[in-house]
């Protein structure tokens, strides 16, 4: 699997859960907790669903709360993607 980048994540987010008016998604967000970006656990679940559909990496529901920043989520997807391929 090609690397899953922050830009890929931004595209997924825009296409699924949308962006809060007060958030600059193109800014430096990789270490900002999803909660502070306006995404509750349901929103992250929605993002994870989309990643599974588009990139083929399943993210277990119980792991979602632990992947609390974009960096952690991106890291998990790349790690799992590498294992799978």
């Amino acid at each position, binding site marked *: 699997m090609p690397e899953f980048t922050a830009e890929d994540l931004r595209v997924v987010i825009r296409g*699924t*859960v*949308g*962006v*809060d*008016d007060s958030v600059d998604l193109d800014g430096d967000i990789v270490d900002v907790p999803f909660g502070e970006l*306006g995404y509750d656990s*349901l*929103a992250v*679940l*929605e993002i994870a*669903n989309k990643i*599974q*559909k588009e990139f083929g990496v399943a993210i277990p529901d119980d792991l979602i709360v632990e992947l609390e920043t974009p960096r952690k989520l991106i890291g998990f997807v790349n790690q799992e993607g590498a294992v799978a391929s």
Partner: protein
Amino acid sequence: MSAVVTGLGVVAPNGMGAEQYWSAVCDGKSGIDRIRRFDCTGYPVTLAGELASFDAAEHVPGRLRPETSMMSHIAFAAAELALADARLDPADLPEYERGVITANATGGVEFGQRELQNLWSQGPSHVSAYMSIAWFFAATTGQLSIRHKLRGHCGVVLSEQAGGLDALGQARRALRADHRMIMAGGTESALSPAGVVAQIPTRNLSTRAEPSRAYLPFDADANGYVGGEGGALLVVEDADSARERGAPTIYGEIAGYAATFDPRPGTGRPPGLQRAMRQALADAQADPRDVDVVFADAYGVPELDLVEAEAISAVFGPYGVPVTAPKTMTGRIYAGAGALDVAAALLSIRDGLIPPTVNVTRLAAGCSIDLVREGPRPSQVRTALVLARGHGGFNSALVVRAA
């Protein structure tokens, strides 16, 4: 204590915002047309009062749009309009003395249909996580509570098409208990194939294709109703609290309210509408002679029209009070209809005008009512009675009075 309306948030097929809607209904301008939201070719029902130019992106923040259905999108717009009209920031009131009560009859059906289609055609992982909340009847109340920090009494009333009045009745009760402000009303959107088809088995929808000949309440040619989307949310406040904060407009008081339920068919007992009307008047300490106009439920179904016309005649005498049904220009907006009619009644009080009932040409036999068809009819209006009924036997009546 009295409950007064200080803000109107209207989203209607014939006008966005209370003023646009009001000028449209006074001009007899209808928003009923052929359904465009989906291809209705082949469906027995092809007409609706659709929000043709409503753009959710204009009214709903980007984060909230994917989480919510059209009924809630409409509610976000209506709530903003109502609060702006009332010049009220709920945060200025004590946290647990501000609440929200909406009515709902059809849920977020277009959202639910889309996700069920995803489930059937692509599988469970393709269903949005927001299917867990967006379609639900109470979703709008929850979303408005979060967005506007309405942290006191939060509720949803399900009484089919009578709900819009029941939500306002509940709001008055909450204000009497311990609240200062309640956002109350209802918004609906059932314009997806599943949403429309679900209404057809009642046999109460018109199957005509000509917009001006379909929804004809009290007419000899009545043949069912046309549905609509939209609705209204009103800011209802304790009168003293509203004056204390300097509310710019007090449209009127919710002076009386009652709800009844029809007896089981076959019992021979009379329908409950007349009892609701009399109880609402008694609750308002009003005499029938005090009432200047009745905003009828106006089902458009011959036997239901007759029940309503007879109830009005029994209380007010034949041709005893002006009766109107501006919903002939929007379609029946399910649980949003009652709140929208209350907005119209309050604007009647403000402007001394009774909006017309359009397209009705010849009253059905037995409908001995003064149905306002020319219009608008100039008339001093101090007290208005608003009626709403829901499928299955719901009857509600609400009295608004100049404050």
